[in-house]
C-alpha cells in the first residue's frame, strides 16, 4: 500500500519547480523525502552513467560515415545494426528451408503416386522417339557406312562371314587402290617411336599432339610397304596411284579389320573409321599421343 504521504510529497513538488528539477537530476537532498526516493535517485544516477562497451561498438563505422557525410559524399548505405541483419538472415534461412521442404514433399508425393513415371512414359518417351531419335538417326548412318558394328567403341567387330561372302559386299573396297595404305596394326608399333621422339621437342599442347597423331598414322605404312611392294614409291600421298597395291589385301585375307577408305578420301577419314578406332588399336594410338607429354615431362622434370 502506498501511503498518502508518498503521493503528497510528490504532489508538493509540483509547486516547487527547483526541487522538482533536482528530483530528476538526482540531486535532491531533502530530509523529508520518503524512503523510495533514494532508490529512484540511484536509478537516475545509473541511467546517466558512463559509456558501456556495447554502446560504442559501432564507433568506427559510424564515424567514418559521418566523415564522408560531412564532406558532402552521398551515403549509399547506413551501418546496419547486427541484430537486424541477423534477424533478416534468420528469416531468409527459414524461407529457404520451407521452400526446400515443400519441394521435397512434392517430389516425394509425385514419386509415391507414380505421377512422375506416368508422365515419363506418356510424354517424355514419345517426345524422345519423335524428336530426338530422327536427329540421331540422321547422324548415325554416316558412321554406319564405315563401321559395320552398331557399337564400334564398346564391342569388337563381329566375325566376318566366309571368304566368298566377304568380298562381295566390299568389292569396291577390295578394288580400292588405297587399300594397302590402310594402317596395319602390326607395323604400327614400329612406327610409334619415331613421331614420339620427333614431337617430344614440341610443346605439350593439344594441337601438336593431334599433329603427332596424324603423323603416326601416316608415316607408319611406309615402313612395312617396302618389304611387301617396292613398286609403290609413295603410298601415302599417291593413294589412288598403284593398282598393285591391291594385292596385299588379297594375300592376307584374314586381316582383322581392313575398313579402308575410298579413293577420294585422304587419311583423315581413315583415322576416324579405321582400325585405330577399334578397342585394341585405340590403346596403341593413344599411347603414341601420350608419349610426347611423358618425354617432355621427363625432360623438364
Amino acid at each position, binding site marked *: 500500500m*502506498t501511503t498518502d504521504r508518498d503521493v503528497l510529497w510528490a504532489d508538493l513538488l509540483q509547486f516547487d519547480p527547483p526541487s522538482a528539477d533536482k528530483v530528476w537530476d538526482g540531486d535532491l537532498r531533502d530530509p523529508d523525502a520518503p524512503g523510495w526516493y533514494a532508490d529512484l535517485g540511484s*536509478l537516475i544516477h545509473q541511467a546517466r552513467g558512463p559509456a558501456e562497451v556495447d554502446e560504442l561498438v559501432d564507433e568506427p563505422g559510424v564515424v567514418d560515415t559521418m566523415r564522408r557525410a560531412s564532406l558532402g559524399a552521398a*551515403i549509399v548505405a547506413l551501418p546496419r545494426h547486427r541484430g537486424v541483419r541477423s534477424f533478416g538472415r534468420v528469416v531468409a534461412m527459414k524461407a529457404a528451408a520451407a521452400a526446400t521442404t515443400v519441394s521435397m514433399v512434392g517430389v516425394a508425393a509425385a514419386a509415391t503416386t507414380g505421377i512422375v513415371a506416368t508422365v515419363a512414359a506418356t510424354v517424355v518417351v514419345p517426345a524422345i522417339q519423335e524428336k530426338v531419335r530422327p536427329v540421331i538417326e540422321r547422324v548415325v548412318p554416316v558412321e554406319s557406312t564405315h563401321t559395320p558394328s552398331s557399337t564400334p567403341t564398346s564391342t569388337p567387330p563381329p566375325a566376318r562371314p566366309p571368304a566368298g561372302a566377304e568380298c562381295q559386299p566390299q568389292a569396291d573396297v577390295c578394288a580400292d587402290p588405297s587399300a594397302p595404305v590402310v594402317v596395319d596394326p602390326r607395323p604400327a608399333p614400329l612406327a610409334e617411336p619415331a613421331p614420339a621422339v620427333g614431337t617430344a621437342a614440341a610443346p605439350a599442347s593439344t594441337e601438336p599432339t593431334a599433329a603427332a597423331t596424324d603423323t603416326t598414322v601416316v608415316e607408319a605404312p611406309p615402313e612395312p610397304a617396302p618389304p611387301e611392294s617396292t613398286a609403290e614409291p609413295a603410298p601415302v600421298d599417291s593413294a589412288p596411284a598403284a593398282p598393285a597395291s591391291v594385292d596385299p589385301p588379297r594375300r592376307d585375307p584374314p586381316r582383322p579389320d581392313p575398313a579402308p577408305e575410298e579413293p577420294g578420301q585422304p587419311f583423315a577419314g581413315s583415322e576416324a573409321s579405321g582400325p585405330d578406332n577399334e578397342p585394341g588399336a585405340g590403346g596403341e594410338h593413344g599411347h603414341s599421343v601420350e608419349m610426347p607429354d611423358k618425354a617432355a615431362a621427363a625432360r623438364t622434370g
Partner: protein
Amino acid sequence: MIRDTELPDVVEAAGRGEHWALTELFRAYQPRLLRYLRAQAPEAAEDIASEVWICVARGVNHFEGDESGFRGWLYTIARRRLIEHRRRLARQRTQELCRDDYDAPSASRHGGDPAGAVLDRLGAQGAVDELVAELTPEQAEAVLLRVVGGLPVAEVARIMDRPAGSVRVLCHRALRRLAVRYGDEVRAG
C-alpha cells in the same frame, strides 16, 4: 559531455570532417542517445542512432550555440527519426520483437526491490528501462529527455512541442507513478 569552452572548436572541426572531432562528439553523446532510443524503440535503436549521427554530420557546420543547445539539437533530430520510424512500422504492420521484449523488467524477479534490480542488471540501459517501465509514452518521453538527455524543462518543451507547464505536469505524474510503484514495492518487500 563536452564543456562549453571546447564545443565551438570541436563543432568547427567536425564541420570540416576531421576525424578526431567527429569521434569526440560520438563518444560524448552516443551512450545517452542510445539509451534514449533503446527505451523508445529497442528494435531499431542502433539504426536510428546512425541516422541521427549522419544528420548531425551534415548540419554541424551550420550549428551555432552552446553545449546545451547542441544536446537539444541532437535529441530533436533523434525524436524526429523516432517518429519516422514509428510511421514506417505503422505502415508495415509488422514489428520485430526485440530480445528485451521476452525479458522485460519484472519487479517480481527482484523481489520488488528496484535497487536490487539495478544491482542485478548492472547496466545503465537496465536502469533506464526500469525508470520508464510503467509510464505512459508521453511521460516516458519527458522523463527520458529530462533524465537521460539532461535537458531542462524549457528545452524538453521545445523538443516535444508542448508548453513548459505541460512538461512539468507530465513529469509530476510520472513521479507519482514511480512513488506508487516503488513505495508499494518496497513496503511489500
